[in-house]
C-alpha cells in the first residue's frame, strides 16, 4: 500500500499553516487586537505576549515529545519488546508540579491586570454613554449635551469612561484596536474605560457588536474616530447645538392635494420653544469639525452591496441633484397625507418638534445626520444615492430593520406585500436633500 500514503501530504499542511502565519505578519490588519494604542490594550498585549511565549513553549515541548515518542518507539520487525511499565510516581508528580508553576506565572499578572483594568476610571474622564439598540449604536456625551449614533468621536490623550446600557437585548461593545470588549446587559449598567494614545491625531477604527443580538447582529457596526483634543472640542461644540445650514421653515406651498396638517392633528404634539423660534434663532454658521471624508481609511468605508435581483430598489438618481431641502423638511415633520407616522415619532432632530423623548427614541438621533459618513448601523455609506434607497426600503437593505418601508410600490417585508401608497422618488430626493443639509 506504499503508493497510497496520504501521510506524504502532511507537510502540505505545515506549509499552509506557515504561509498563513507569515501572512498574518506582512499585511495590514485594520482590526488587529495586537495594538498599543490605549492603556487597556497595552495591558492586554503584555498578558498576551506572556501567554503566547509560555503557550508556544508548552506546545513545542509536548508535540516534540509526542512525535519523538511515536517515532522512537514505533513497532519494528526485530525491534525491542515493549517494556511493561505501569506508572512512575516521581515522574507523575513532576508533570503535575511543573504545569502548576507555569500557571502561577500566568495567574499573577492576570489577577494584577484584572484589578488594573477594572479599577474606577480616573477623575476627569470624559463620560460617554453607549446605548445598544437592535441593531445600531447610540452614543451620548452627557457632559457635552451631544447625542449621536454609530460614529463615536474620542479625544486623543484623554481617558474615556464608557457607561454601557441597552434598550433591548444583550449587545457587546468592541473596538478591537482600542481595547477589550464589554457586554451591554439589559436592566444593568456596565462600565469600562481606556485612554487613546495622545499621538492619535486623526484615526478611524471599526467597532462591532460582539454579542449575538438577533437577525442583523452582523450589521450592528460602528466607527470610532480618535481625533486631537481641539478637533474633538470643535466637533462636540457644534454637535451640541442644532444643525448648521438646515432649511428654515418658511412658507412652503404644500404639494398638490396634500392637506396641510390641521391644528387638530397638531394637538398633543409638543412644540418646543426651539422649533417655534427656529426661524428667529441665530443659526450657527460655522460647521464644527467632522472627520474628513477624503481622509477616511479604506477599512472604515462600508462595502455592503445593495440588494440585487428581485429586491433591487430602483431609484431615479437624477432627481437627487434637484432635491428641495425645504420641501424635504416639510415631509419629515408632516407625512400625515401619506398615512405614515412622521419620521419624528422615532427620530429626534434637535430644533424640530419633539414627538418623542430624546432618550426614548427608537431610531438614531438625526440632528447632525449630514455630518455622518455611514447609515444603517454602519452598514452603508451615507451618500445621497444610498440614503435615498434606504428611505425607500430600509428592511430590504438591512434584514429585520424596524425602519419602515416608505417608498410607494416597494415590497414591505413586515406586511409581506407591496406598499400601495408611499413616498415617490421626488419626495425622497427632497428628504435626502434635507437630511444631507443637517451638518
Amino acid at each position, binding site marked *: 500500500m506504499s503508493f497510497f500514503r496520504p*501521510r506524504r501530504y502532511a507537510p502540505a499542511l505545515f506549509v499552509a499553516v506557515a504561509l498563513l502565519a507569515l501572512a498574518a505578519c506582512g499585511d495590514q490588519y485594520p482590526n488587529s487586537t495586537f495594538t498599543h494604542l490605549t492603556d487597556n490594550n497595552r495591558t492586554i498585549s503584555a498578558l498576551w505576549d506572556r501567554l503566547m511565549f509560555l503557550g508556544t513553549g508548552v506546545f513545542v515541548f509536548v508535540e516534540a515529545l509526542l512525535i519523538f515518542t511515536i517515532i522512537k518507539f514505533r513497532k519494528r520487525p526485530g525491534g525491542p519488546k515493549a517494556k511493561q511499565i505501569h*506508572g512512575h510516581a516521581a515522574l507523575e508528580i513532576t508533570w503535575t508540579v511543573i504545569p502548576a508553576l507555569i500557571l502561577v506565572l500566568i495567574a499573577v499578572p492576570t489577577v494584577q491586570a484584572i484589578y488594573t483594568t477594572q479599577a474606577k476610571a480616573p477623575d476627569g474622564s470624559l463620560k460617554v454613554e453607549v446605548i445598544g439598540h437592535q441593531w445600531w449604536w447610540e452614543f451620548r456625551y452627557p457632559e457635552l449635551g451631544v447625542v449621536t449614533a454609530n460614529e463615536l468621536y474620542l479625544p486623543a490623550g484623554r481617558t474615556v469612561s464608557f457607561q454601557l446600557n441597552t434598550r433591548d437585548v444583550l449587545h*457587546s461593545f468592541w473596538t478591537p484596536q482600542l481595547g477589550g470588549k464589554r457586554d451591554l446587559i439589559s*436592566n*444593568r449598567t456596565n462600565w469600562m474605560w481606556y485612554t487613546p494614545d495622545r499621538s492619535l491625531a486623526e484615526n478611524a477604527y471599526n467597532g462591532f457588536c*460582539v454579542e449575538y443580538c438577533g437577525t442583523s447582529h452582523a450589521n450592528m457596526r460602528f466607527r470610532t474616530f480618535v481625533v486631537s483634543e481641539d478637533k474633538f472640542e470643535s466637533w462636540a461644540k457644534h454637535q451640541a447645538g442644532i444643525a448648521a445650514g438646515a432649511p428654515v421653515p418658511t412658507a412652503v406651498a404644500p404639494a398638490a392635494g396634500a392637506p396641510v396638517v390641521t391644528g387638530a392633528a397638531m394637538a398633543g404634539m409638543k412644540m418646543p420653544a426651539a422649533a417655534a423660534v427656529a426661524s428667529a434663532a441665530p443659526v450657527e454658521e460655522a460647521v464644527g469639525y467632522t472627520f474628513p471624508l477624503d481622509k477616511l481609511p479604506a477599512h472604515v468605508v462600508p462595502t455592503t452591496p445593495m440588494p440585487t435581483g428581485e429586491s433591487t430598489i430602483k431609484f431615479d438618481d437624477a432627481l437627487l441633484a434637484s432635491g428641495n431641502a425645504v420641501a424635504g423638511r416639510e415631509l419629515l415633520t408632516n407625512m400625515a397625507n401619506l398615512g405614515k407616522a412622521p419620521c419624528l415619532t422615532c427620530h429626534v432632530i434637535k430644533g424640530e418638534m419633539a414627538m418623542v423623548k430624546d432618550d426614548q427614541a427608537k431610531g438614531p438621533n438625526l440632528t447632525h445626520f449630514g455630518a455622518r459618513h455611514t447609515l444603517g448601523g454602519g452598514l452603508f455609506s451615507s451618500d445621497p444615492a444610498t440614503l435615498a434607497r434606504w428611505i425607500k426600503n430600509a428592511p430590504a437593505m438591512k434584514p429585520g430593520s424596524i425602519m419602515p418601508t416608505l417608498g410607494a410600490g416597494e415590497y414591505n417585508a413586515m406586511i409581506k406585500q407591496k406598499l400601495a401608497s408611499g413616498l415617490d422618488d421626488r419626495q425622497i430626493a427632497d428628504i435626502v436633500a434635507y437630511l444631507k443639509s443637517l451638518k
Partner: protein
Amino acid sequence: MANTAATQTTAAPHAAYESGLWSWIATVDHKRIGTLYLFTALFFFLFGGLEAFLMRLQLAQPNGHVVSAELYNQLFTMHGTTMVFLAIMPLSAAFFNYLIPLQIGARDVAFPRLNAFSYWVYLLGAIFITVPIFFELAPNGGWFGYAPLTTIQFSGGLNIDFWVMGLQILGISSLAAAFNFITTIINLRAPGMTLMRMPMFTWMSFIVQFLLILAFPAITVALVFLLFDRFFGTNFYTLAAGADPLLWQHLFWIFGHPEVYILILPAFGLVSEILPTFSKKPLFGYHVMVYSGIMIGFLGFGVWAHHMFAVGMGATADAIFAMATMLIAIPTGVKIFNWIATMWAGEVSFTTPMKFAIGLLALFTIGGISGVMHSSAPADTQQTDTYFVVAHFHYVLFGGSIMGIFGGIYFYFPKMFGRYMSESLGNWHFWLNFIGMNLTFFPMHFSGMLGMPRRIYSYDAGQGWEKFNMASTIGTVLLIIATLIFVINFLKSRKGGSVAPNDAWGAGTLEWSIPSPPPDYNFAQIPTVTSRYPLWDLKHPEMTSDISHASPDAATVADAHAAPMHEETGGKTAAELGIPMPFSTLKPLFAALGLVIMFAGLLFMHTDKFALAMTTTIGGAALLIGSLYAWLTSPLE
C-alpha cells in the same frame, strides 16, 4: 436483571439473531440500542457538518450571499445544537451502551427498557428540533439561547419554542441514560472487578454520568423558566418586570461548562483503551488517570463564569474564575503526559484507531493551550466572542472529541460488526481529516485575534480576514471528502471487511474475550476478573506481571455463578444456554412518543389554537402515562 436471571429456569423463546425492522424497533438489547445510537448520531453528525459547510460557503468571501441573515442565524444555532446534543453526546452514548456492559462483564444494562426509552426520546427529540430548519423555522437564538433575546418579546415565532422543548426532551433522554449507566456500573460488574480494575473507558463514562445528572438540572431549570415565560406569562426573563439576564447566563453555563467535559471525557476514555493496545503496554499511571478524570469533572463545576468575562461580574469574581479555570489545565496536562508515557518504551503500531488517538493528543493540546489563554480574563476580553474562541473549542471538540470517537469507531467496529474497517481508506480518512481540520480551524485563531466577531453572517471587504476565511472554507471541503471516505468505509466494511476474531487487536479487556459480534447474551459464563487486563492475564501474563492481582479463588468464591477468566466461543443461543433474555417491547417507544407529543402540543398555543394545544398535550400525557403503566406492570423477561 439480566445477569442474575441465569438462575431462573424458564427461558423466554428468543432467537439469538433476530433481524428485520421489527427486531430493531422493539429491541431492548444494549448492543442494538448502541448501534441505533451510532447510526442516528452519525447521521446527525453529517447533518450538522452540512450546516457548517453552508456557513463556510457564506463566509468564504466578504458580503457573501449564499444564505440569508435569518437562515444563517438558524444554521449556526442548529450547528451548535446538533453537534453537541444530537451528534457528540449520542456518539458517546453509543459507546456507553455498547461497551459498558461488555467491559464490566454484564449481560445487559441494569434497566434495558429504560435504555430503549432513552434512545427513542433522543431520536424523536432530535427529529423535533431538526425538522423546522426545512421550513426556515429553526431555532435562531444560538445554542446558548441567551435571554432576553429568546423571550417572547424579542423572538415571537415558533423557532425558540422548538429549541426550548427540544432541549428539554433531549435532557430527559440523557438523564434516564445516566441513571441507568450509574446503576449498571455500580451493580453489574463481574466478580473480581473492583472499581480500580474497571477499564478506563468505563471509568470516564462513570464520571460523565455523574456530570450529566448534576449538570442537566441546571439547564432544565433555566429552560423551565423560559418555557413558562413563553407559554404561561411568568416573568423570569421579562425585562419590563425587572429581570436580570445574568440569571440565564449563570444557569446555562453551570450546565454548559460541565457539558464540555461530558463531551470530551468519553473520548479520553476511548483513547485510554486504544493507546495501551497498540503500544502493547498497560495504561501508564492508571490511578492518576482515574483521579485526574474525577478532578476534571469536579473542577468543571467551578469554572462556568469564564464564559462570562465580558459581562462585568466585577474584578473579584473574574479573578476567582480565572484562577479556577487555570487549575483545570493541571489534571488535563497530566493525562496528556500519561498517554505519552503509555507509548514510551512500547511497540507503537500505527493502525487507524491509533492514528486518531495520537491525533487527539496532538490537537487537544492546542485546544488546551488556547483554553489557558482564555482563562486570563483581561486577555479574554479581546478573545471572547471572536473566531479565536471558535478555533479554540473546535480544537477541543473536533480535535478532541471527534478524533477520539473516530478512533473508537475504527477500534470497536470489528467488535460490533465482526469485520475490520479498511485500513487504507482509514488512512486516507485520518490524513484528510487531520489536514482539513487544521486548515479549517487554525486560521480562525488569526481571524479572531485580527478582530473578526463570531456569529456574523456577513463581513465587509478589506478587514484583513479574507484569506483566513477562504482557507477555512477550503479546509471544510477536505473535511467533507474525508467524512465521505469514512462513510464509504463504514458502510462497505459492515459486509465486506475482513473477518475479525474475538480479540481483534490484541487488547486486554473483557469485551475482547467474547465473539465478534457478541451474542445477545454477551457472556455465556460471567468471567472472574483478577486484574485490569484480564485477557492479557490469560494470553500474555508477562504484560500484566507488573500490575497488582487478586487471587482468583477469593473472587470466585464470592459468586457461585462466576467462571474463571476464559475466552468464549459463542455459537449457542440464549435458549440453549438457559439464559433468559428480556422481552422485546414497544412500550418504551410509545412512552417516548407520548412525551414528545405532550411537548409538541404546546406549540399550538402560539398559533392561538388553545383547544388543540390542550387536546394534544393531554393526549400525549395520556399516552406517556398509559405506556409507563403498561411498561411497569409487564414482566421484563
